[in-house]
């Protein structure tokens, strides 16, 4: 999987809305890496260095982060249907983005926000509510977590749908709808530092918890008997997943299916040990997302196809085939 990353990043760089010679693309990237001035035209160099490179890297980071948080959520609620959005994070982010776009955030706050920050705050608000509802006597109830997450996600989706429907500005409605489907269009270098730092830190923490995650899949009591501090771990998993998902959704929108299917695909390939599932999901998720984003640019030349459509259209059949062909186990 690790070996496959470099060629896939190369594919992400080589293909896009316009056709550029592969040699020129690679030379421009190498020149940029070595600090030399690009020898090609300014416009083509801009396309490679200011659009494709940050976009490809962002796709990798978002795919990796969502897949890993999918692993964390599935272990936390011990349910194979869980994904990064199961606790209502995407619903909160969507509501935050919708309210911001439609100008429904109070003026004193709106001036200090942009759409990404509004989405992140929406996600944070929902996960905080879910956490408070699920917490009782210092313990977190997984059933309450799930139910509160699903209920608040539905509530926030209704908020997004209402503000979008009620808006008289068709341009903003279109922008929100496009954002909800997920896209890497408009990604700039400034989006990458926070997203990649949070994803790498989150990945490191999850990897550190890999043995505890294995134990948690057997049940909370079993994990406790093996010396795992279950309550502490559940809180950490929620905070890490909320932070990673909130940041990633805020830059790329609510891209679906990746966080659900990649962890299962990785389990089908490397087994259920989280020591392998976490890094496997990091690399396969990133690789898959780069390929999906590349396809989204090639399928309709010159146009933007929301990447969420491609992840579902291509990812789900791939996942079903894998599920059928392998000796799959969740626990």
């Amino acid at each position, binding site marked *: 999987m690790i070996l496959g990353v470099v060629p896939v990043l190369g594919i992400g760089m080589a293909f896009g*809305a316009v056709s550029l010679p592969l040699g020129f693309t690679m030379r421009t990237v190498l020149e940029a890496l070595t600090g030399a001035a690009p020898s090609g035209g300014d416009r083509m160099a801009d396309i490679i260095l200011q659009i494709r490179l940050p976009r490809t890297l962002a796709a990798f980071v978002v795919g990796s982060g969502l897949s890993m948080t999918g692993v964390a959520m599935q272990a936390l609620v011990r349910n194979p249907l869980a994904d990064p959005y199961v606790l209502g994070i995407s619903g909160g982010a969507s509501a935050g983005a919708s309210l911001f776009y439609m100008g429904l955030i109070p003026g004193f706050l709106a001036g200090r926000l942009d759409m990404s920050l509004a989405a992140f705050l929406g996600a944070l608000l929902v996960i905080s509510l879910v956490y408070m509802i699920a917490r009782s006597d210092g313990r977190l109830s997984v059933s309450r977590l799930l139910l509160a997450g699903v209920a608040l996600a539905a509530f926030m989706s209704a908020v997004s749908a209402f503000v979008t429907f009620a808006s008289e500005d*068709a*341009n903003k409605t*279109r922008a929100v709808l496009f954002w909800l489907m997920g896209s890497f269009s*408009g990604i700039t270098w400034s989006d990458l530092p926070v997203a990649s730092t949070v994803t790498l830190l989150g990945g490191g923490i999850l990897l550190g918890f890999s043995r505890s995650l294995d134990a948690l899949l057997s049940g909370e009591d079993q994990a406790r008997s093996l010396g795992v501090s279950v309550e502490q771990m559940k809180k950490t998993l929620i905070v890490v997943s909320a932070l990673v998902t909130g940041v990633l959704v805020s830059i790329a929108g609510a891209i679906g299916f990746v966080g659900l299917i990649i962890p299962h695909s990785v389990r089908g390939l490397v087994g259920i040990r989280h020591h392998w599932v976490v890094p496997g999901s990091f690399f396969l998720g990133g690789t898959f997302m780069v390929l999906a984003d590349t396809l989204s640019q090639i399928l*309709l030349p*010159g*146009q933007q196809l929301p990447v969420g459509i491609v992840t579902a259209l291509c990812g789900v059949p791939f996942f079903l085939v894998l599920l059928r062909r392998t000796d799959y186990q969740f626990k």
Partner: protein
Amino acid sequence: MSQSAMRRRTLPALSILVCSLLCGCASEPRKPAETPFMTLTDGLERTVNLQNPPQRVVSIAPGATHIMRAAGGLSSLVAITSADYREQDLAGLPRISALPLDLEAIVALDPDLVLASDQVNDPSHADLFDALDIPIVYLGSASWEAVLASIRMTGDMMGTSEQATSMVDSLAKKRDELMAKTAAPGVRPTAVFLISPIQSYSFGAGSYVLDLMRWAGLDPITSSFDTPAPVLDDEWVLMHNPDVIIGSFGEDDAKDALLNHHPTWQSLDAIRNDRIFSIPAADILTPGPRNLQAASQMARSIHPHLFEVVAPRTGNESLTTK
């Protein structure tokens, strides 16, 4: 009397009562006149019979309202849509929701004609209105020729044929004059139309908006797209480097908004040379007679020298335009 016997007698009685009530509630069907006042083929190629000259018309598309205005039929309108933002002189008319269609509000107005647009309204609503015995006409507006034909047809329906024909002749003449002005050699900068500065929704081949751009003396770069409404990729726009960007950007600073959402476009000629122009959405995004106004505004903004007023050389000459 046993329970089963009671049930046997009660059920038929109840059935008769329910049937009587249902029949009584059903409205008396309108009796069709012997000969229709007018038979026409609308924009969906439907044959519509109008029994009487329409007196109470509801418009369920802004484009249909524009066509009614051009045809001189405004006095017969009893309601327009909540999306008719620019019809200030019709402020006294009720506004109805067209998306989703507020059917109850329309029926309550007791219209004798509903005007729709073949580009905006759902064709399946025709069956709905047929069942309610309310005639609906879908006005064609897929092309400029269709718009002119719709104005003529509306004039015929509303009994304002003379006014409609005069408007059609005037619009056709103005369009020809505009095209003649912008046909001068060397005045065809490349251009892209964006519906919004946020997402790059544009128009593809066959769209009336590309026709308007050509009338205004522009060469639209999106004419190679087969899809009617492509969402342009930033790198594609960068590669095609349009000389001009046009859009319905509203009152905001379009350049700032564009660069905010598409920072890599700062190297575009249109951005560097400040060739960004905004056209009111109601004039360009609603297919109809106002589109000519949009084309004219585009042409005047982009080629002001073609519309310069030549100062008279002597006191006896009047002001003329080139």
